[in-house]
């Protein structure tokens, strides 16, 4: 396949882990490592079939998880007197997750502050610079939320032989145009309805990739009202 979707600006492996922990309501202090490893590997497998450009960090984390899992399968070694008790193999990972979560939460708190030119305004001065490339690109809905939603959609189609799908025949460009045309008429649409006209797995994947491209091109924005809630897609031009 001759396309690849770059994911800069999306979240990394730690974020994927936190996402899975939250989704499955797991205890971060006592992560069931087998379950989380399986979920994690499934997620990156899905990303791979999308031909998303998966950063090396994701693969490294998969290896780390499997290493922890294998260590936990081993019977605990006899602790000899005077020796320190062996650490839980998950400890380092948990420490990193907690440290990361601290800043992730701080970041979302920051985004909820009263922001100038959004929540409050200062006096209007006539000479003002209006920088076109002003917005920070990244979408409001995380990649992993999108992948979750995609997984739901894929569940409902009869499994075709996923890898035999010829992506080049289903043009992402065509799908992009379809989405844009619909947004022109409908103002906004749900993520689910994005796939209304898709009947095969290949088509669904193409629509999904078209959506990612549009997000990256800043042509559309995606919103999610609440955690794991309905994802909506809107066109950015509408606001002008």
């Amino acid at each position: 396949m001759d396309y690849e979707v770059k994911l800069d600006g999306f979240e990394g492996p730690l974020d994927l882990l936190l996402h899975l922990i939250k989704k499955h309501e797991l205890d971060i202090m006592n992560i069931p490592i087998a379950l989380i490893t399986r979920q994690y590997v499934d997620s990156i497998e899905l990303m791979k079939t999308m031909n998303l450009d998966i950063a090396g960090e994701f693969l490294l984390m998969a290896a780390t998880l499997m290493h922890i899992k294998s260590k936990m399968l081993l019977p605990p070694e006899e602790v000899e007197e005077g020796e320190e008790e062996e650490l839980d193999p998950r400890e380092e990972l948990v420490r990193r997750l907690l440290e990361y979560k601290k800043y992730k939460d701080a970041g979302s708190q920051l985004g909820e502050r009263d922001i100038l030119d959004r929540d409050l305004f200062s006096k209007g001065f006539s000479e003002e610079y209006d920088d076109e490339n002003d917005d920070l690109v990244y979408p409001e809905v995380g990649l992993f939320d999108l992948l979750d939603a995609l997984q739901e959609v894929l569940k409902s189609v009869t499994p075709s032989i996923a890898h035999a799908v010829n992506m080049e025949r289903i043009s992402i460009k065509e799908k992009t145009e379809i989405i844009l045309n619909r947004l022109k008429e409908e103002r906004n649409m749900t993520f689910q309805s994005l796939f209304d006209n898709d009947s095969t797995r290949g088509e669904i994947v193409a629509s999904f990739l078209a959506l990612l491209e549009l997000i990256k091109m800043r042509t559309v924005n995606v919103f999610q009202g609440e955690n794991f809630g309905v994802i909506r897609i809107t066109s950015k031009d509408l606001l002008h």
Partner: protein
Amino acid sequence: MEKNALKGAIEALIFTSESPLKTEKIIELITDEYGLELEKNEINPLLDEIAGDFNAEGRGFSLTEVAGGYQFRTKTTYASLLQKLKAKRPPKFGRAAMEVLAIIAYRQPITRAEVEDLRGVDSGGVVRSLLEKRLVRILGRKEVPGKPIIYGTTKTFLEIFNLRNLSQLPTLKEFVELEEVEVERVQSELNLPES
């Protein structure tokens, strides 16, 4: 100088300044214009009085202390109305950008590699766009091998996020055990006093 006239002078200065105005600057200009020797503790009660006047009902904007100075800003109740006036997309900050910004804000001076260690993912693109937005700036280089660039937040960052200074950032929340959160929720739902 009569008190009301002085108050008016301060208001006019803050109103006219394009960026938050520092107390020192107010004192300097007033001394310069009226030949008055003013102390900070003479200015502060007047600033408080102005803030009080504008907090009153029916006023559309109020005096805020931000980025080390004073500026009039509209009340947040009118956000949506004013967005319509501006007819400009309000600034949007994506999750990844906020995360990196928070890390830089709390941990400055910090190198890109340190940001990436914390996040576990390449963050060059995000840092660059924060630099371009002037939310983040280069503070210098770290005196370690490779002399990596160190980053910090800017005055613009304080202005945009309505912060008086960095110490106003909320303290980082350490992880709270789930059970505790649950207990709190139940208590608040049942409207129980805190134990």
